[in-house]
C-alpha cells in the first residue's frame, strides 16, 4: 500500500487541505479527493489538454503534476472561472458561438484561453491557434472555438455598459 500525504493548497480561491495518495496526480486529487469533476481526463499523459488548470497562474495539464507538488500553490480549475454567478466573457462567447458540441474538452479550452488572455489580451488568430495547439477537440474542427476566443478577447477589452 502506498502512503497518504496531507496537502495544503488554495483551490479556486479557497484554502484547502486534502489527503492525497502519493501517486495521485493533481487531476486525481481534484476529481477523486476533492470532488471537483470539471477537469476532465482524456489521455492521462499530457497530450489532450482536457485537464488543464492554472497552477500559480501558469497553464499546466493537471495529469502531469503530482498532487504532492501543489503544497502551498494556487490552483484554478474550470470551476473557479465564473465569479459571483457571472460567467466570464470567454464562457459567454463559447455559448454564443456554439463552440462546444460534446463539451468534454471545453473546461481545458476555457482555462487555456484564460491563461492566453491574461498574457496577451488581444491575440491574432495565429496566436490563438498556436496557444491552443495543446488542447484537442474532436467535435468542432476548432473553427468556432477560435471565433469564440477572438470574440472573448474583444468583449473583455470592452467593459459591459
Amino acid at each position, binding site marked *: 500500500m502506498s502512503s497518504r500525504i496531507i496537502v495544503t493548497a488554495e483551490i479556486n480561491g479557497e484554502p484547502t487541505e486534502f489527503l492525497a495518495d502519493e501517486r495521485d496526480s493533481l487531476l486525481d486529487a481534484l476529481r477523486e479527493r476533492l470532488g471537483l469533476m470539471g477537469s476532465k481526463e*482524456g489521455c492521462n*499523459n499530457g497530450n489532450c489538454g482536457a485537464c488543464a488548470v492554472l497552477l500559480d497562474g501558469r497553464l499546466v495539464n493537471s495529469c502531469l503534476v503530482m498532487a504532492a507538488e501543489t503544497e502551498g500553490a494556487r490552483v484554478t480549475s474550470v470551476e473557479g472561472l*465564473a465569479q459571483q454567478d457571472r460567467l466570464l466573457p470567454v464562457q459567454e462567447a463559447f455559448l454564443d458561438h456554439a463552440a*462546444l458540441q*460534446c*463539451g468534454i474538452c471545453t473546461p481545458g479550452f476555457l482555462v487555456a484561453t484564460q491563461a492566453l488572455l491574461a498574457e496577451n489580451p488581444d491575440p491574432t488568430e495565429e496566436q490563438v491557434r*498556436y496557444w491552443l495547439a495543446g488542447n484537442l477537440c*474532436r467535435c468542432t474542427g*476548432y*473553427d468556432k472555438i477560435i471565433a469564440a476566443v477572438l470574440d472573448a478577447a474583444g468583449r473583455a477589452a470592452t467593459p459591459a455598459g
Partner: protein
Amino acid sequence: MVAPAKSPYRVVGTRPVRPDGTDKVTGRANYGSDIRLPGMLFGRVLRSPHAHARILRIDPSKALALPGVKAVITHTDFPAAEDAVADLGETSSNLKWLVDNVLASDRALYHGHAVAAVAATDPHVAEDALALIEVEYEPLPPVLSVHEAMNEAAPRIHPNMHTVEMMARFTPGPRSEHDIPNVASHLRMEIGDLDAGFADAEVVIEREYETGTSHQGYIEPHNGTALWNEHGELTVWLSTQGPFAMRDSLARVLKLPVSKIRVVPMEIGGGFGGKISAYMEPMAAVLSKKTGRPVKMIMQRDEVLFGTGPTSATYVRVKVGAKRDGTLTAAEAYLAYESGAYPGSPVGAGGMCMFAPYRVPNQRADCYDVIVNKPKVSAYRAPGAPAAAFAMESTLDELAEQLDIDPLEMRVRNAAVDGTRRIDGVAFESIGNEAVMTAAKESPHWNSELQGENRGRGIAMGFWTNGGQESSAYATVNSDGTVNLVIGSVDIGGQRAALAMQLAETLGIDYEQVKPLVVDTDSIGYTFITGGSRTTFATGWAVHEAGLEIQRLLEDRAALIWEADRELVHYDDDGVIRGPDERSLSFTEIAKQLHRTGGTVQGKADVTPEGVGPTFACHIVDVEVDPETAKVQVLRYTAIQDVGTAVHPAYVEGQIQGGAVQGVGMALSEEYVYDSEGRMRNASLLDYRMPTTLDVPAIETILVEEPNPGHPYGVRGVGEVPIVPPLGAIASAIYQATGVRPRTLPASPRVLLEELLPDDEG
C-alpha cells in the same frame, strides 16, 4: 452563393444558446466518469499483449491476495453464450462473438483484447493488481491485412466460420458455395449490364487504393459504473450514444430480462459511432454482482485505441468507364474491409455510397467482410463511406484529367438527380446533389486563384443515406406556460437545442419555454441511438407529434372553458387558441387554467419515421506540400452540403466542420501503426496524430437547404456526410501540388516522401 429563402419558421433556423450550455462551460455537467457512489470500487481491465494467442491459464490468486482487491473476473464469470445473431445498434453480431469480444474465452484475437478484470477499493490498487494476474499464453501467428487474410495459406481466425452470401446490406443469405479464407460475408450489389456499360465506354481506367485504420478519437474515454443490487436489478451509469442498445447488449451478454436493467445515460464526451458497443459495462456489472458494491470502470487512452472499435483499414479497386464527353457508362468496385477479430465491417455501406452522387447506368460492387487479428471495428461517422469515396473520387478526377474536363464539370455532367437509381436499386427523390454542385461552382473558394509553388486544389463529393428508426418523446405543460420535454436521445452535440426548437415551433412558443430532459431507459419508450444522423430528424419528428397532441388537448380545454363547439376551436401557429366570438387564449394563459379544467396536459409520441432524406456534400481544399519533408498543410477548406432545413445552423455548421477535420485526419495523419507481431505501436494521442488547431484552417461552410419532404420541418441528417469527401479532395489537391497521386491514405510524410523522392534517393 445560394440566396437563403425567407424562412417559414419562427424558431427553426435561429441560433439560440443550448439548454445544457451553462453546465458545460462551468464544469458542472455530469459525464459518465464523474459519477461517485457510496462504497464504490474501481475496476481495471487486463488486456492481451499478443495479437493472436491461445489462453492456457489465468491465475488471479496473487491479485486477490493484494489488500484492497475485492474481485477478479474472467470469461467464465459470464453466462455461456450460444451462437445467435443479435441486432444491436448499427451492426449485427453473433452473441458468442459479442461476449468473446467483451472478455476473451479460449483465445485472444487482438492486441488489447480484454482477458480479465479486477475491482479494488482504490484506482491505484486496481492498477497494481493487474500486474499480479498471471496469464499463460501460447502465441499464434497473427493475420494482419485483408491480403494476408484472404490468402489460402492464411490461418483461419474462426475455424468454424463460413462465408455468407448477403442478400442485402443487413440481410444475411445462404452459405457461399466457395468459402473464402477469413471472409465472413460477401455482398454483391448490381444494376444495369456492366459488360455492356464497359463495351460502351471510350475510356476505361482501373486503380487500387488502400486506407489505414483510424479511430473516432472522442476525447472522453469509455466509462461505465454498475450496481447489481440484492434483488437482481442492474443499474448502469455511463456515456453512451445508445442507452437502449446498451440495455439490449447487457441483457444478452448477462442473460437478464431488459426489465431488470436500467441504463442511465450521463453526458457524453463524443462518440462518432464508437460509443454504442458494449466493452467494460458487462464486466462492471459482473464485478458489482460479485462484490455487492458499485463498480466504476474508466478506460485509459491506450485501451480506448487498442481495446475499442476503430474503423476498417480497407482495400478498394475501382474501374470506371466513360465516353469522350465525360458521360459515365459503367462503374465497378471490389471492396475488402477489415472487420477486426469478429465480423461486421461497414463494407456494404462503402459499396452502396461510392457511386451514389453519379448517374451511372451500369454498376457493380463486390463487398468482402474480412476477419483479421485487430480490434473489432465499430461504427465511425458514415461508416465505410470515406474510404470508398476516396477510391471513386480519385479515379473520377484522373478520368476527368485524361478527358481534359474540369473535375467539377465532370461531376456536374454526371450528377445523380431525382429518379436516378443507386446501386442498391433505390431511386432518389428530392435530393440536393445538383444544388450542392452548383453552389460549389459559385463558391468564392472555387472562383479564387490559387497561387504559389507546391500548392494544389482538390474537389470531391460525398454521399450518405442517413437513418430513421424508433424515437419516443413526451412533453408536459407546466402552469407557468413552460413545457418539460422528455427524450431518450442522448445529447452529443446540441440535440437538446435542436429538439426543443422543433417543439417550440410546433407549439408557437418561445424556445426558452421548452425545457428538455434526457432520461434513462426506465423513463421513456425505446429510442434508437444518437447516431446515423437520425436524432434531429427522427426524435424531432416524435417531438413534433407530441406537440400536435398538446395542441389538440389544449383545444379540448379551451372548448370546455368557453363552453364552445369543439369544432370551432383552433390552435394557431402563433401559439394562440382561437374560438367563436373572437375568443382567444395564449399558451401561457391556458397553461394557468389546466389544474381547474381537468389537470395536466401531456403530449406523447412514439415514431419510426419513413421519409429519411439522404444527403450530399462537396468539399474544396487547397494544400501546400513541403517538397523536402512531404508535410501537407491545409491552406483553405470549404464544405458545401445539402442540410435540408438547418434547425440550428450553428450546430449544423459545427457538424460539418468537425466531420471535415476528422476527414483531414484520415487523409493526412491518423493511422494505427502495427509491428509485425500485430502490436499497436502508437497507442497515445501524441503518436496517433489527430488534427490540432495548427493543422487546419478555418473551415468555411455553405449550407444548401433543400428541405426533406419526408419531415414536418424538412430536416435531413447532417452529421455524417461531411467526413466522406475530405479524403478524395485532399488526395486530388496533393496530386495537383506534386504530380503524385496518393493511392494509400493517410498521405503521411512517410508514405508521400517515398513517392516524391527521385528513385535514386528512394
